[in-house]
């Protein structure tokens, strides 16, 4: 390649991701800040703490996140121990299955819990859970158990077990050994996982909207209610700024904790893992099955049965699935067409995320250090910012010249790709970095010129990582609800999660059945795309985790 050609290639590597980020993220977020910190906005912002409605929303946002996090850790820790330190039949299956809830669309999880409460008779009456904080907490635990199982479990597995064994030989009971030897080394991982879970719960949107009802609002849902329902953009902006400030503070803390964890990590694998004893295994599995399996099982069951009239079993039916093709007055298009829209958007979003994320990864790994660091941080911003920030920013920034993209249906996959890019980079960057420099040297010694080395060594290894990233982006896009719910409504851009949300918002057996059928299809599509691509990708030298 000529010198000019090389420079052009390098320039486009930097330019494409930079422009994408600037137009679709920095400019919208900047618009929120400009609006909210301008003279009008500022007085509104200063007013906020005095309003009791704001104080109760802020209080609820914080405490539900704290309690959700604590509950999640308590439920997940024994399971993490089981996965890290014990051998049993179905261990890898459990590990894979436990990650499924994490990738499920939030609206699907909301629907699953609605179905569960109805089946258990907790939808109303004295033990009502629907539209309570309890419902939100339960769904958050369901979602985030996977995060703790995965991050803490992997870290735990990597801890050298000989230290604990030495403590046991020296006379410590299992509890003492855990307390004095395992826990001090494990807690940074637990703290890091907790801070991530806290962030997720703090910015939770779909679950709160579906299960909480108007009385149980968080900052996120309030931004949405003011912006979309009441058209009060000034209040929404003020709330969004509070939200952004809180998220930035939490991301800083999380990064600190993450760094501690990285320092402590030392991977030791051993061939022999003791078998799990029957009681321990049964107790743990039962807990995980109830927490993780029951909502999904009820969801599937509900999609296949008629509602119980007068306590009688309605019988199996596929009617709800068949009804997905019919028009209902709630939706501008049929649920099936919405699912079709979602699939198209997901393909486009995955393609965009792979293009932008792949180029950005090359810059992060091979670029000059200042550019590399700027990209590493910049492209991760949309992941740290909540979906609501992304959606609300686009709503207020991209609806007027010079960038009037309201009329384009492709704004939806662009918003989804913005969230997908960090996922792609989190897999591709460590994989590129992890390519042993001696592989390149070996190829050069065997006669491969530099361009050939990139094509023969870097590209095949990165391709697998890109495919895994594409799979995740696809799943993220299929289930994306927060950002999409802000984008202007139009029949040809109704996505499956939006359709599901509207179906869930109305009572009635037929609608509920359709909602459950749609939720099951969405769940199957997301879970399959993640599990299939992950199983395939992990066989190569793909590194990195979400």
């Amino acid at each position, binding site marked *: 390649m000529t010198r000019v050609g090389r420079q052009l290639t390098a320039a486009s590597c930097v330019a494409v991701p930079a422009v994408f980020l600037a137009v679709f993220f920095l400019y919208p977020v900047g618009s929120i800040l400009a609006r909210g910190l301008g003279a009008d906005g500022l007085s509104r912002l200063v007013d906020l703490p005095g309003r009791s409605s704001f104080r109760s929303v802020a209080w609820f946002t914080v405490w539900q996140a704290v309690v959700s996090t604590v509950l999640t850790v308590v439920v997940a820790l024994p399971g993490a121990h089981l996965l890290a330190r014990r051998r049993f039949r179905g261990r890898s299956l459990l590990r894979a299955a436990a990650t499924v809830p994490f990738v499920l669309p939030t609206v699907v999880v909301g629907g699953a819990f609605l179905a569960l409460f109805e089946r258990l008779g907790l939808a109303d009456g004295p033990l009502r859970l629907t539209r309570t904080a309890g419902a939100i907490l339960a769904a958050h635990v369901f979602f985030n158990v996977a995060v703790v199982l995965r991050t803490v479990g992997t870290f735990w597995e990597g801890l050298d077990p000989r230290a604990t064994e030495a403590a046991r030989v020296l006379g410590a009971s299992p509890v003492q050994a855990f307390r004095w030897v395992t826990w001090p080394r494990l807690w940074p991982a637990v703290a890091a996982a907790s801070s991530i879970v806290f962030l997720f719960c703090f910015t939770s949107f779909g679950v709160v909207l579906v299960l909480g009802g108007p009385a149980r609002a968080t900052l996120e849902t309030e931004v949405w209610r003011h912006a979309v329902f009441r058209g009060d953009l000034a209040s929404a902006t003020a709330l969004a700024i509070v939200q952004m400030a809180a998220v930035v503070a939490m991301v800083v803390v999380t990064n600190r904790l993450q760094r501690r964890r990285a320092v402590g990590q030392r991977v030791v694998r051993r061939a022999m893992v003791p078998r799990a004893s029957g009681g321990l295994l049964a107790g743990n599995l039962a807990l995980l099955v109830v927490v993780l399996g029951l909502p999904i099982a009820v969801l599937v069951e509900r999609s296949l049965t008629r509602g119980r009239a007068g306590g009688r079993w309605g019988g199996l039916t596929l009617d709800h699935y068949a009804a997905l093709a019919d028009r209902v007055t709630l939706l501008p298009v049929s649920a099936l067409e919405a699912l079709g829209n979602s699939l198209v958007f997901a393909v486009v979003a995955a393609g965009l995320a792979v293009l932008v994320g792949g180029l950005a990864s090359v810059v992060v790994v091979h670029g000059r250090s200042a550019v590399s660091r700027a990209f590493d941080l910049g492209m991760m911003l949309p992941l740290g910012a909540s979906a609501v920030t992304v959606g609300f920013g686009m709503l207020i920034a991209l609806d007027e010249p010079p960038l009037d993209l309201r009329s384009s249906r492709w704004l939806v996959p662009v918003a989804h790709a913005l969230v997908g890019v960090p996922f792609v980079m989190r897999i591709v960057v460590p994989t590129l970095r992890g390519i*042993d420099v*001696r*592989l390149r*040297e*070996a*190829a*050069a*010694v*065997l*006669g*491969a*010129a*530099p361009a*050939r*080395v990139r094509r*023969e*060594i870097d590209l*095949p*290894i990165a391709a*697998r990582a890109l495919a895994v990233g594409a799979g995740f982006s696809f799943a993220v896009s299929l289930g994306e609800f927060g950002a999409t719910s802000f984008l202007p409504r139009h029949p040809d851009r109704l996505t499956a999660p939006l359709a599901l949300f509207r179906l869930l918002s109305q009572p009635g057996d037929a609608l509920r059945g359709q909602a459950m059928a749609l939720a099951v299809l969405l769940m199957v599509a997301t879970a399959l795309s993640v599990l299939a691509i992950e199983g395939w990708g992990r066989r*190569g*030298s793909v590194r990195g985790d979400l």
Partner: protein
Amino acid sequence: MNRPVDGGTAPVGLEVHGLSVSFDGVPVLAGVDLTVAPGELVVLLGPSGCGKSTLLRTVAGLEQPVAGGVWWDGVDLARVPTHERGFGLVFQDHALFGHRDVAGNVDFGLRVAGMPSDQRAQRVARALALVGLDGFGGRRVDTLSGGEAQRVALARSLAAAPRLLMLDEPLGSLDRSLRERLTAELGTLLRRLGLAALHVTHDHDEAFALADRIAVMGGGRIDRIGTPDEVWADPGTVHAARCLGHENLVVLDADGGCALGRLGSGSGTVLVRADCLSVAPVSGGVDAIVASVSRRAGRLVATVVVGDLSVRFPLADGHDAGVGSTLRPGDRVDLVVAAGAVVRLVD
């Protein structure tokens, strides 16, 4: 200056002259001179960190010298990039391409050279047969044992028909018995192929088993170079003597004396060759006490103490055993130092 004339075509093989390499200003190689003739197997012997791997990497073009250079058949390689040098390098932990199977690894050099696929398949099969891995072509490289991976790495380099084969402690990560077996195989194979080869190791047994010439490295230079017999008989420096496995290094006082008697003139360090020490069948020698008798590599070895000095040497053993095999720790013996046992060393 003994720098070769550029553009020569005589088959003189590899010449390294005044080669110096620094990392962040810290010198790693300080003026190395070395030649490897066609068909010759030179072993670089030295402790870790002495610069022997850096020497290989610089010859391969993976590191840039700050002074001196590398020539092949009289041609200066300073401006020849790694991939055009036509040298093979077997890495310490193999550096196999995990995303390709065994055949895909062995094939690599041929493919980048643009060889048609039917010829490549033949060459791959032949290279795998050479290293005793017939039929391994379809295996994934992460299913190979350490010894198998090592053979694949060797086959990958051999298949590309390099002008010079370099091996960077290729057997270092294997267990002892496998290492000894593969050392013997490697020596036989390299001699059969008649390749110029530069082999790096820190194991003197491996060096003696393989080398046409041994170059002992220390502190970024070559201390001593010669045939195995030459360097064994006269290591030259204390460092080289230790690297080669000599144990009886004796520091002399100002008069050249020590507990064994007067071994030289003036102070300094000398080597007392173990093969020149023995136990007298009858009295007549230096008074010594046996400290221990043990077997090393199947041979009986005695450690005896003379005054403040302790020396170690092999004992006669087996059917022609003399007094040696009956020795016990604590026995008093007469130690005989044969003529020619003492070799002067430079510090």
